[in-house]
């Protein structure tokens, strides 16, 4: 903008003034670009560190399940499988529960005051540190659930998913603690999206004689689908990258097992357990796994953005 050239300017701004203006502008540009710099630096550092393992194992790394620091043989299949299975299973349980809760909170089943209190409580649950959830899982949840899991093993043991006796930490408790973690995220995002569905659309749905649930299922939820789907994908990203609660309860075994009752591993928990003490090729192998995790979460987050954009309701 050529402010100083404008005929309406009564006095020329001093060079100090303009230097300050420019200086501040550029300072904000620099600070803003730091985000991108950090992001790229993370990618570069992780990628650079994993090169050695990439050269050594190539894509076989992704499908081999042996993790043997003594003989320097590494394959991340167990951890990748654990990451995907734990987060997807957790999501399958948490999505219906979370979306159902959000509907219950938003769609006037309860007096306004109680709805607000429940909403606040769910937000609070989202703020509980995952390490505290992990502690609760170790001290309370897993011991309480073990008899139930044993029963499942005894009756359904012929299914590979339940083929081992529960010995304590394992994939199943990790999935459940992930559900506890994801529920408030999905509930909050779904609630916010449902709140944004225009009141005109609610009027339209009820106005033609829909019952409350007909309106919810046929009109309101479809209108909110973009935000909910985006929230679900963000939750998936969080689940895949979640470290503490999972590390504390999954058992951290690098041996592959189909059984949900056996100890397992995720990329994040493997990093938490081994990265501090690893050296040599093991560091590189861990970084290769970290790169896989990074790419997975990146894809899921980009997909979330795309979904929100693509499915957004164009309501005038």
């Amino acid at each position: 903008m050529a402010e100083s050239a404008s005929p309406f300017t009564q006095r020329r701004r001093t060079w100090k003034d303009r230097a300050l203006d420019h200086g501040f502008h550029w300072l904000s540009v620099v600070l803003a670009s730091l985000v991108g710099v950090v992001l790229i630096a993370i990618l570069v550092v992780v990628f650079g560190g994993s090169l050695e393992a990439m050269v050594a194992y190539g894509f076989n790394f992704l499908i081999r399940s042996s993790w043997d620091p003594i003989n320097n043989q590494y394959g991340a299949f167990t951890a990748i499988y654990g990451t995907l299975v734990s987060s997807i299973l957790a999501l399958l349980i948490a999505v219906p529960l979370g979306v159902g809760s959000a509907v219950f909170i938003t769609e006037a089943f309860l007096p306004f005051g109680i709805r607000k209190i429940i909403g606040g409580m769910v937000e609070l649950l989202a703020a509980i540190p995952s390490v505290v959830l992990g502690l609760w899982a170790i001290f309370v949840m897993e011991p309480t659930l073990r008899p139930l899991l044993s029963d499942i093993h005894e009756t359904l043991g012929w299914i590979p998913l339940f083929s081992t006796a529960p010995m304590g930490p394992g994939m199943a408790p990790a999935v459940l603690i992930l559900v506890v973690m994801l529920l408030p995220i999905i509930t909050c995002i779904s609630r916010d999206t449902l709140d944004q569905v225009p009141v005109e659309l609610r009027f339209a749905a009820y106005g033609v004689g829909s019952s409350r649930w007909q309106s919810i299922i046929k009109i309101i939820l479809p209108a909110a689908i973009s935000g909910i789907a985006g929230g679900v994908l963000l939750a998936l990203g969080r689940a895949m990258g979640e470290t503490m609660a999972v590390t504390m309860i999954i058992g951290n075994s690098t041996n592959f097992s189909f059984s949900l009752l056996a100890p397992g591993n995720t990329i994040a928990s493997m990093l938490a357990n081994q990265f501090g003490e690893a050296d040599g090729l093991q560091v590189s192998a861990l970084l290769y796994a970290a790169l896989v995790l990074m790419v997975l979460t990146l894809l899921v987050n980009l997909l979330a953005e795309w979904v929100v954009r693509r499915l957004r309701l164009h309501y005038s």
Partner: protein
Amino acid sequence: MNILTSHSPEARSSSTCLELENVTIRYGRQEAVRNVNMRIPSGKVTAFIGPSGCGKSTVLRSINRLNDLIPGCTLAGRVIFQGHDLYSSQIDPVQVRRRIGMVFQKPNPFPKSIYENIAYGARINGFRGDMDALVEGSLRQAAVWEECKDKLAENGLSLSGGQQQRLCIARAISIAPEVILMDEPCSALDPISTGKIEDLVRSMRGQFTVVIVTHNLQQAYRISDLAGFFNVIPSSDGFSKVGVMEEFGDTSQIFNAPRQDTTRDYVAGRFG
């Protein structure tokens, strides 16, 4: 408070469709409208006129219990439809809305196909006839068939504002309600679309009981048989304002020989 509910001989002669008795509506503790009494005859077009904030839309939404969706909104008094008090605890608001349809201020088609906009309401109302014929018939009657007969699969939101509003009218009449409520249906539309909708409303007379809120006095004069004039007056506590119905009667009487001074001032364009 002086409330006049006058009825011309013509209004009394046809059967009463809706009756409001001492209706007072509150948002939380705040009174929005107070002591509304009126008798709306079947098959006529009744217009609610008055300055903004006088509660005419609130009264309109109370007739099909749509205010139930607004947190904190309560109604005292009685709204009687075919001998039923709509606010008695035995009444199912869903059934009420199936018999008393509504068209809103802002066109609000469902974000679905044009066809589905009509079919959805029919389906949930247990329609047993030929769906294609119903869609075509409703769109024809709402004078929007020619414009969308070739794109029934397109999203209702892709239509222009005026077309969307006629689609909404088609949606309302498709389920054969007895009453249609219209809340300033033309306020967001251009004059040509407005004219089309006015023609439509006139054509609905006899078949439906229409209650229409409008801030357009000429429109009320052109299309309505009866008119209720709402005004906003200072509340008894002196701090807030409350809506009241000052006068109700034949449209020609309200416009040509109003009994209340405020009505005369309003229809003469001196305020509002």
